């Protein structure tokens, strides 16, 4: 699903450049629930931005759904994002003047789907995250947890290959954090590949595979107790 080989990324800072990612190798298969752990400055957000086609890498290869990502222009990137990726951000990034339903329907608009069908599909996904009754509310009428669930519905509505979540619980309290993580796990259990970035151990612990990043390199990559294959392995023992 996602294959990254010897990925490098630097940011120019004045005359110098900051080497953020120093040769990342990562392979994420379909249906995985992966978290990238790391403190701030470890390069985890940069990695997500590159994976999410929001930023370009300098060196190395990146295959998304078997397709080599190279020299993308904005238009192609937009099409690929719309087709393969769903985003969940720390700060929700809902459009403030659109209702929950319209926010969820927006990616379908860019996919060129007709309005009636858009709204119908969007309502289904809002129902899925338990917010059907809030469809006509504006984001500022929703709680943080609700906003993030709307954002998750929006990420899912195009039925992408991967859901990318950048600190999805960063702005939430512990109860809502658990709700959101439960929701992401449910989605994963239905077969969706979920890719979470976090700096919280408790959040990472709820995923099935933890990749630890430090100073732009992967220092560990292990399966958690949640993982089925891990469970199988334990059973076999």
């Amino acid at each position: 699903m996602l294959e990254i080989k010897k990925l490098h990324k630097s940011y120019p800072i004045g005359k110098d450049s900051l080497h953020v990612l120093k040769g990342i190798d990562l392979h994420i298969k379909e249906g995985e629930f992966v978290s990238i752990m790391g403190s701030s400055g470890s390069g985890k957000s940069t990695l997500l931005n590159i994976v999410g086609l929001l930023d370009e890498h300098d060196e190395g290869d990146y295959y998304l759904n078997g397709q080599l990502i190279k020299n993308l222009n904005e238009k192609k990137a937009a099409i690929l994002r719309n087709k393969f990726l769903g985003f969940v951000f720390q700060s929700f990034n809902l459009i403030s003047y659109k209702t929950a339903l319209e926010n969820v329907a927006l990616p379908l608009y860019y996919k060129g789907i007709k309005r009636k069908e858009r709204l119908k599909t969007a309502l289904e996904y809002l129902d899925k995250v338990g917010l059907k009754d809030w469809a006509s509310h504006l984001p500022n009428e929703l709680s943080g947890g609700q906003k993030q669930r709307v954002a998750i519905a929006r990420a899912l509505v195009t039925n992408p290959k991967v859901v990318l979540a950048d600190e999805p619980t960063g702005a939430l309290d512990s109860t809502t954090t658990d709700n959101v993580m439960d929701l992401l796990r449910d989605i994963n259990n239905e077969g969706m590949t979920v890719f979470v970035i976090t700096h919280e151990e408790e959040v990472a612990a709820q995923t099935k595979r933890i990749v630890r990043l430090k100073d732009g390199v992967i220092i560990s990559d292990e399966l958690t107790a949640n993982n089925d294959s891990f469970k199988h392995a334990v059973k076999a023992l």
Partner: protein
Amino acid sequence: MFDLDRWREIFQSISKNKLRSVMSGFTVAFAILLFTLLFGVSSGLGNFFKEAFADDADNFMAVRVWKTTKPYKGLQTGRRIQLKNKDYNFIKDTYKDKIQHQTARVRRNVNISYKNKQDNYTLRAVHPDHQFLEKTIIDEGRFINQRDLKNKAKVIVIGRLVKKDLFGEKPALGKRVNVSGISYKIVGIFSDVGGDNEERLTYMPVTTAQMLYGNNDHLSQIIIGYNPNLSTDEAIAFGNKMERDLRKELNVHPDDQSAVSIMNMAEANQMVGGIMFALTVIIIFIGSGTLIAGIIGISNIMIFVIKERTKEFGIRKALGAQPSSIVGMVVQESVLITTLAGYLGLSVGTYILSLESLREVLEEYFIKEPSVSTTLVVTATIILILSGLIAGLVPAKKAAKIKPIVALRAD
């Protein structure tokens, strides 16, 4: 462009961000309002000037004579100059190709009576061409014609108000009236844009008047309409030449302005033209300045708006919006706002100009029937759409170029 979903997005963005939309719209509406008023007022001024001279033909030229003020060839000052038929013929023969219409005018005060009604009127004895030079409008019957002139016919053409005085609502055409003791047949009734005084006049053949009132060949005035193919400068030169020639003919000092003078509409036209030209230049200058200020205003607001929406664009891009769709959305919104607001300004402006009470006030300041032409409205609309396009396009292109990751970070 006619994507219904796109329009829906735009209407939503406009209606959910009212302050922003109203602000950008207001600048344009106000600029166009000022633009409309300015052009309306200038057209009103133009109308006033045009109408001030509309009474007579605009190629009107009149020969006037009075007493000499300069001695010449042994002749004294204070001598009264008299125009005669020979002067009429002199002009006719000498300047044939420079003259379109020509008439003499003999003026008399007469008493006209019909049955038991009577009053004093001014009589003008003229040639047929007088109709064109005075822009007389024939309501009924006809004007004096060549045959009347030849036969010295006792016919009369009366003004609308003369008819009203003597006949009321009853028909007057073909009836006979008594003009200072002689019976005339009414062959025509006319009206004139020059006002009530002009409609209280009566016309008869110059030959008839010369025979019946004084039995001489005196003329009060000679009026010609110069050939409309002459340029203003040529017409002025022609007037000056004719003035010199006539002074020579009538034995008057070449510089005696009082004895023989020519009132030349070409000179007035030239002056009015000059004033109108200066006025137009000033108004185009101020008007386009106002428009440019409006366009700069909306560009400024659009830059601010796009900065404010950078994050939204980032979100949209992350969700799959292509740069062209962002640019298209912003430009379309900008064009829509400028066009609507511009039309609002235009409508308000036109409405204000059409207010009857305002028109009355303005007329005291030489502004008559101010209005804006269709051409101007169309031009202004095109300018509006273009300016909306430019105002939106430049910042939108810039916004669409921002990487989504940068845009998302914006607050």
